[in-house]
């Protein structure tokens, strides 16, 4: 029986929106439980508050100016650290990166997670002793580090740990004072645009380097699984068979002539599914494997933050999922059918060319639009590089900042939480549509954060009194 179009459209978007929503929900619950209204939260001494430490008595102008300075300093530090990590990646210090990543993740899970757990234990008066707690915490953190970086575990576990890491970091950020938080969010959104889209942006350079070398990006990235399961044509490539079967990590759509001339033999698409493209130890391509955590220095030596390298959105449009279909309809050409290239062995260096050729043979598409499309793409020097795994990827930094916004909204009232949640999800949807249209890595922060901030202030100042007034008089519409 033919399935209706309604069953499959939008699957990838929902698979990204769901973990973002879960992370936001967890942060809101934590904030709501552990930060009773009206209590004074002692601000933690972090680098985000190096310049200005907000006190309640300062005037509005002081707070704005101080928050603005804090934001600028924070963005500068993030930029410097990103460049340092890009340098490490460029000079192939992979072991260094991996060790650093693992250590940072362990610190987040053990130290920040431990602090949050202790606060929860105090709040709920759970009877547990130190030794049990210590053992459980160390085990929890170790399994988390292994699941995210080193071993291939059930995907739910990896995704769950990534969400928990994002949640812990976001909760930590919500302890910052209010104006600093807002200016920080806005500064990070602006920085994200620049870092991903500008030619000298560190994230853009990192992405291009990773695609050129066909390696994993060294960052904490949440990868949603593809919605339509496909069968693997053969056993997953192991290190023993690495000489002949080289699944490509990234496919070039209309690469510029000066780009790499790899012979790609193998199944381009199938690399991603059961063999996770973040499959570190069996990676044939010398995957960096390590994930980067931005790290800023506080009193204790390392207080890692989630990968701000990850603040961009990369997607694959190679399967007949929504985004591929959307982009194909918008561009007016045939979507690439994944079932076709499972068996193809493209022996030339241009991914699209092969698929276009196969398309012509197998699907009998029109020649003309395809030709024009390729010409257009070829003329473009940048080359739209896309992940092969067939899954949407969202950097963990985006999770963190969305949750920070919603967590800060939760400190005012639940109505602002709902408004900000809808704004963020709307912005994320708009970003995904732009991704489908432009087919290049997109910064996921700016639209959502700006919508979220606008909606927060509108709700708090204008809508809240309006609705509460109506509702307490029991007049509805």
């Amino acid at each position, binding site marked *: *029986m*033919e*399935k*209706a*179009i*309604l*069953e*499959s*459209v*939008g*699957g990838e*978007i*929902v*698979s990204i*929106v769901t973990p973002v929503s879960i992370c936001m929900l967890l942060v809101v619950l934590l904030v709501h439980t552990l930060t009773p209204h009206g209590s004074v939260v002692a601000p933690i001494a972090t680098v985000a508050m190096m310049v200005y430490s907000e006190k309640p008595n300062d005037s509005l102008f002081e707070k704005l100016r101080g928050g603005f300075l804090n934001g600028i300093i924070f963005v500068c530090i993030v930029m410097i650290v990103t460049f340092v990590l890009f340098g490490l990646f460029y000079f192939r210090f992979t072991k260094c990166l991996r060790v650093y990543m693992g250590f940072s993740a362990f610190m987040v899970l053990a130290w920040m997670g431990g602090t949050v757990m202790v606060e929860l234990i105090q709040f709920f008066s759970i009877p547990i002793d130190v030794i049990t707690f210590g053992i459980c915490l160390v085990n929890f953190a170790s399994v988390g580090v292994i699941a995210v970086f080193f071993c291939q575990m059930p995907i739910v576990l990896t995704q769950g740990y990534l969400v928990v890491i994002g949640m812990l970091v976001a909760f930590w950020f919500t302890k910052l004072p209010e104006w600093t938080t807002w200016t920080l969010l806005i500064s990070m959104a602006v920085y994200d645009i620049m870092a991903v889209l500008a030619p000298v942006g560190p994230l853009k350079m990192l992405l291009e380097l990773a695609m050129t070398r066909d390696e994993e990006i060294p960052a904490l990235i949440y990868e949603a699984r593809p*919605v339509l399961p496909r069968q693997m044509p053969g056993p997953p490539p192991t290190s023993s068979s690495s000489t002949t079967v080289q699944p490509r990590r990234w496919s070039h759509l209309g690469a510029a002539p000066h780009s790499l001339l790899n012979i790609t033999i193998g199944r381009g698409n199938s690399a991603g599914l059961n063999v996770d493209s973040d499959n570190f130890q069996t990676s044939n391509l010398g995957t960096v494997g390590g994930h980067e955590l931005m790290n800023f220095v506080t009193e204790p030596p390392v207080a890692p933050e989630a990968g701000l390298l990850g603040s961009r959105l990369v997607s694959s449009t190679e399967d*007949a999922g929504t985004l591929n*279909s*959307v982009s*194909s*309809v918008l561009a007016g050409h*045939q*979507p690439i059918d994944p079932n076709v290239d499972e068996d193809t062995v493209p022996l030339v260096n241009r991914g699209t060319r092969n698929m276009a050729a196969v398309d012509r043979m197998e699907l009998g598409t029109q020649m003309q639009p395809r030709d024009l499309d390729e010409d257009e793409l070829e003329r473009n020097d940048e080359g739209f590089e896309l992940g092969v795994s067939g899954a949407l990827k969202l950097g963990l930094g985006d999770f963190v900042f969305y949750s920070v916004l919603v967590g800060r909204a939760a400190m005012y*009232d*639940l*109505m602002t939480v*709902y*408004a900000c949640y*809808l*704004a963020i*999800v*709307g912005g994320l*949807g708009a970003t995904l549509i732009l991704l489908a249209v432009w087919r290049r890595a997109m910064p996921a922060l700016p639209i959502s954060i700006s919508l979220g901030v606008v*909606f927060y202030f*509108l*709700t708090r100042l*204008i*809508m809240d*009194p*309006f*609705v*509460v*007034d*109506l*509702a*307490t*008089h*029991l*007049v*509805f*519409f």
Partner: protein
Amino acid sequence: MTGVGGTGYALIALGPAFSLFVTVIASKPFLILTVLGSAMMWLVSLIACAILWRAFLPGAVWTFLPLLITVVGIQEAVRLYYWCLYLKVEHFLNKLAAKVSKPQLVATDKIQIAIASGLGHGIAHSVFFCLSLLTPAFGPATYYIDSCVHMPLFLVAAFMGLGFLLLHTFSMVIAFNALAGDKHFHQLFVPVMHLCASLLTMVNLLPGGCIAGVPMTLICAVVTMAVAGKIVWDKTSTGSAELGNLQRVHSSSSL
């Protein structure tokens, strides 16, 4: 009234929405996105109304009358705009279906999209008007307002929220059907019923009015549900000439 009471109120307001969501919407990702999209549109219209009327509140009681009329007008205008957007989305989906060799949208699909849109409106309404009031309900006490000493504020708000949720959901189904088939009676029915339900809530302003206000809202919701049910029944009965339906029936019976 502690966690049990708070959860109870939340379930009264959102229980049917939750079950509708789980049965109809959760299995289809596109419908989930529709719910979120229409909730966001309702929120934008609410913010527009709030900007318009913020300066006048809190004011005299009689200000509620022009407020309700203008606000319902704005929301019906937003519904028409939403319908125009829906036409574009439907066209896009049909084009997409043609490209990936799947069947075009049939009547049941369109009804499901209408339900999802209405549910988005309804859930947004319930959440903003009812759930956001409920935070104190999880605490140890309860709260009565002066004009309604018979029922706690939270209970009244939960019932009204439920009524309006059903009203919004099913009036969207009626509106989609009416605008597609250009049926004037139903096209007028939706805004008129919305306005009636809103104006009837003003009964709550009178002392002891909530005893009448709550049942009247629920009656409006039931009437809307009945009209929508009749429309859906007519559309999906075998008398309808929708080819898609027959195709579906054939292919499902051939399995």
